[in-house]
């Protein structure tokens, strides 16, 4: 799988490159700023772009802006945005701009290599990967203001969070040590309780859950 990596911190870039190559990804280009990233994407047409949010020259959010532009220009290129801090606003911008193939993760998640690589593959396959941290913020927020979310059982709330993170039922089952059948039961109850439209593909499911969480 062909990947382009944009990260201005040399050590982290090198570490990430090794993790990717060990995981069977082919790193076709690395850059340290957003402009270089967009040029490299135009040239190499990779399957996946991994970019830091804060990069030179302004050290604000140019990585995210570049990611949004890339998703708009090349619908076949999956994009995963990494950051030292995750927030709802950026998660929304990324989800709203595309039909899947986006990820938004804390940099710290790299360390849990297997989960991280699984997330990348999930995104390349057309899915979504949202950091547990940002999902937790949204679920906590919804619990404060929405009685339907508050009324869910703790287990259902766990399932809801994992759904929002972009995981499939089988993955949720593994994560919670449940049978896949049990997960399906939980999800359908959640759908009923929140009045969500039933969606087959994982990204639509994430979108529906996220929309529900942010409207609450």
């Amino acid at each position, binding site marked *: 799988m062909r990947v382009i990596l944009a990260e201005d*911190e040399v*050590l*982290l870039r090198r*570490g990430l490159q090794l*993790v990717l190559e060990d995981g069977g990804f082919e790193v076709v280009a690395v850059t340290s700023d957003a402009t270089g990233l967009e040029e490299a994407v135009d040239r190499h047409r990779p399957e996946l772009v991994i970019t830091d*949010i*804060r990069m030179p020259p302004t*050290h*604000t*959010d140019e990585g*995210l802006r570049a990611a949004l532009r890339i998703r708009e220009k090349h619908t076949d290129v999956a994009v995963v945005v990494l*950051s*030292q*801090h995750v*927030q*709802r*606003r*950026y998660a929304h911008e990324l989800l709203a701009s595309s039909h899947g193939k986006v990820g938004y993760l804390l*940099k*710290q998640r*790299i*360390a*849990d*290599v*297997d989960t991280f690589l699984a997330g990348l593959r999930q995104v390349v396959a057309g899915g979504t990967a949202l950091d547990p941290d940002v999902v937790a*913020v*949204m679920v*906590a*927020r919804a619990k*404060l*203001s929405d009685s339907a979310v508050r009324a869910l059982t703790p287990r259902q709330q766990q399932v809801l969070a994992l759904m929002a993170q972009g995981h499939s039922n089988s993955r949720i089952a593994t994560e919670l040590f449940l049978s896949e059948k049990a997960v399906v039961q939980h999800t359908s109850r959640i759908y009923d309780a929140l009045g969500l439209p039933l969606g087959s593909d994982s990204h639509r499911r994430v979108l529906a859950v996220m929309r529900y969480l942010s409207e609450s």
Partner: protein
Amino acid sequence: MRPAVVRSTLARSFDRSLGTILGAGLVLAGLNAALLPLDGPVGHILALFPLVFLAFLGAGLRAWYRRPSNRIGALILFGGFAVWLGSMQNTDVPVLTAVGTIGATLILAVMVHLLHAFPSGRLQGPVSVATVTAGYVTSLVLQAPRYLFDPNGPAPSLVIADLPGAVALGGRTQQFVGAAVMLATAVVLLRRLVRADHPRRKVLAPLFAYGVLAVLFIPLGSLVLGPVFGIPPAIRAGLQLLVLGGIPVAFAYGTLRGGFARTGELEELGTWLGASDGTRPALAQALARTLGDPSLTLSFWVPRRHVFVDERGVPIPTELGPDRAVVVIELEGRTVGAIHYDSLLIGDPELVRTAGQVIAIAVDRERLTAELRESHRALRRSRERLVDAADRERRRIAQNLHDGLQVQLVLLALEAQQLANAPATASAAADRATRLRQGIDAAAADLRQLVSAVMPASLIEGGLGAAVEDLVDRMPVPTTLALDIGERMQAPALESTAYFVTAEALTNAVKHSGASSVSVRLVSEDGWLRIEVCDDGVGGANAGHGIGLRGMTDRIDVLGGYLRIVSEPGDGTRIEAGLPCA
């Protein structure tokens, strides 16, 4: 409201003197009309003499009345007298004819004098003094051979000998010196025009041009108009008189240009000082009116910093502009202030110095206020620098943690996990390595919180709106947010102050109020960023449990904003802050 005009006794006696001059002038004009042979063949031309004289009288008196300290008015009156004297040549009274002959060309010298003395009425520089003196010598002394040695001349009673050679020599000398005077005058005036700034040049250029042409036209006009254009002598004389009559009007207008208020006397300034109350922002204005220079400024000495400052406490530039002069005001031997004025408008620095002495005590009093303002400004600037430095330091620390420690924790955790995943690692060690990775992840989460408290990433990356949104997202009680602050703000100090005030208010609501809901509003309107945080908690907040907020007031003060806390017991707490944004 117009300030009441205080007329001192001295000013009233000045008014009376001008009245007397007016009366005498009218008598002279009457005399002139009576003595000139107005019913003769050129009577209608001669009738112009009293009119020209009246023009000088009127213009001179007006200029003198409006600007008592300026000598142009007196000079114009003197010119009127010269016209009157010259016109007496044409009477039939032998004595008056003789006197008129002696002073026939005096008016030309006075006109040269006017040109050099404009606008202050005082001659500036030795070249002007020499040129004007030469002008008077040409008109009064070098004129003498014409009537002393020529029996066929205009005043036979003055002839002492018949010396045609002397008459010719005198005439040539007079022409030569007269030409030299005019040349010198032209050079001096041109240099002044070149040095003058644009608005002044607009006044000076036409006036100088008219004056020089008039001085040349009146004696030489006959040479050109008669032979070249064939204009009869009577009309030539009439034209010359009309040109002459324009002189006083032009100079009086030039002197009073810009519609200056009438300048007052120093005594009036003193009376005004005594009459007005202690607060006197108009001191400089009163001084400007008294000295007749609207561009006059007053500055105050700050000994601590060795600078002059204006009334707002802002230091003024030390170098002087063109045509600006400065007089230092002293009180009991120490410098208290300075007066900057237009040296062309006010020719005599003594006048300014005297005015400065009159107001020295008042200046000293205002000086203390200006000094206080200056030190207040300095203090405020230094506090701004402190807040700025603190912010920059916070950003630097946050950036260093972001680039350094946070990256290292990612790499360390990665290392631990790779150790755990390595096939060679025994399963017990692999478990410990995985726990190590999780421990590092937890430390990284703590570090994220620390960084967030120092200078949140959301503020650096997404600005105030994103940062406050993130803050509200993480509130443990239901919190609504109304945000209307437009695009990213430019001033980092404003953004971070607004963020920290909001964060502190939210912390207070969570920690102390026991609120079940909170609302946050950030609006930018009318050049103000307004922050409002309300909760429905127990209220009764006071400075005691708002220590963090009190710390914020310092920051808010520095930016010129406000902070209000309304917190009645049992009625929730409402915190309002406003920060001016450009």
